[in-house]
């Protein structure tokens, strides 16, 4: 499968292995197609997880990671892409409905937008909250003081 992908997409994807686990780093532009192909042709029918990692020092600040599993092959694969701050990604809700909450969480925690998501809003933090806490520039003690004061009626949540 990897060899076939490499043949089709050439330099757009790079297959890697770490600690016995396969993953591929894919160009942002190939993401919609590769996810669709993985689901429809390669039987990766279970989207385990979608998450992101923030690298503020890099030009393309975010890694977005899809963890996929195929029941038929009993295999797991990770797809990683790098995007700029503010760049959006296509939603994979049409491919895997489970992506709905997972993408909402990525949006909530990192501020990454997914185009075509049916209901992209915060999921763990309250709707009016400012900031995305899993970004590296968001300090661990930081919080939206204004929100806390208005909605909880206390000076600070610390």
């Amino acid at each position, binding site marked *: 499968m990897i060899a076939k992908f490499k043949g089709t997409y050439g330099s757009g994807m790079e297959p890697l292995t770490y600690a016995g*686990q396969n993953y591929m780093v894919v160009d942002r532009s190939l993401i919609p197609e590769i996810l669709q192909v993985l689901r429809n042709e390669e039987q990766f029918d279970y989207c385990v997880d979608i998450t992101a*990692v923030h690298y503020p020092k890099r030009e393309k600040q975010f890694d977005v990671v899809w963890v996929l599993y195929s029941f038929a092959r*009993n295999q797991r694969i990770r797809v990683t892409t790098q995007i700029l701050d503010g760049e959006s990604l296509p939603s994979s809700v049409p491919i895997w409905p489970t992506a709905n*909450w997972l993408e909402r969480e990525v949006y909530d925690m990192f501020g990454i937008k997914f185009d075509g998501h049916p209901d992209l809003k915060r999921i763990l933090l309250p709707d009016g909250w400012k900031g995305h806490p899993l970004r590296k520039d968001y300090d661990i003690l930081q919080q939206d003081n204004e929100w806390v004061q208005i909605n909880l009626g206390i000076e600070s949540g610390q």
Partner: protein
Amino acid sequence: MTDPHTLSHLDLETPEKPFLDANELVINMGPQHPATHGVLRVILRLDGEKVLGLECVIGYLHRGVEKIGEHRTYTMFNPYVDRMDYVAAVSNGLGYCETVEKLLNVEAPPRAQYVRVILTELNRIASHQLWLGTHALDIGAITPLFYTFRDREEILKIYEKYCGARLTTHAFRIGGLQYETYAGFEKDVKNFLDFFRPKIDEYEELLTTNRIWLERTKNVGKISGEDCIALGVTGPVLRASGVKWDLRKAQPYANYKNFDFDIPTGQNGDTYDRYLVRMVEMRQSVRIIEQAVSALPEGPIIAKVPKVMKPAVGEVYHSIEAPKGELGYFIVSDGSTQPYRVRVRPPSFVNLQALDLMCRGQLVADVIAVIGTLDIVLGEVDR
């Protein structure tokens, strides 16, 4: 400025029709509601008593566990994972320790693996007992709660004797175990198994053929295997819908490949089948513990791990079959003593997403049954 006493910031849609034209009614359940097993808020859209759809509002217990992970060393973060699914703390610890072990490229010695399996399976039983007691209580049967809590106590006593804690045990260490088993550990476990085997029959006697139980659970909250896979639902819920998939068999971790056990499945994917699947799972856990405790090898309990852990740069995803489904950890290391990123893939969070689908067309009272049967722990949903 928002008035703190209204819920306007939560963006509740008001139906456009006048209130008394109750064709479609939006009502709120929770976040403080005895049957939501924590602080879960459900907004129900109803036609009379029939559920047209619902939306879950979560996050009330959000503590930023993943953020904390980035600011603690690998060892320091270990106890935090116990606080996610606090009724199955041992499983959380197992998943975390094994993921870091993969990053460090070490493996726990055989004795540690066996003790891990014993404690984790005991925890699966304890988690299922707590689920059964509270689920039955929600539906209106009080007795199972007393039975299951009485028996769960015996498991907690073993934990207490082993590591001093009963609930958030922090039983495992990266690389193996911190404590050797106490004198009489094996005897205690064996005694528990002998004590517990007839208790499962006792639970089943109360419920399996109980007419009220059947009425309240049969054909309630049905979900097909395909829908489960599409929604990423795992664990007993997936198996009750006829998909024979368990990570302990599919991608064995710890040393589960050495043990003989079956994976129960259901056919209908309804609340009753999920009940039956979990009952069989408890029996299978007893089988696994029995094999593990009688073959417990001697030897070291912890592998050679550095005091200051600095895994090489890299990223690893590893998951285990927690009592509620697939519990995964995705850890990115930048070569320092602290993880660069810890992502937890909680089974409860993903499974809860299926609540909407499972409740459509059901009655309000069934929503309670379905929340119970999904076996969610809000500490894990919100992290």
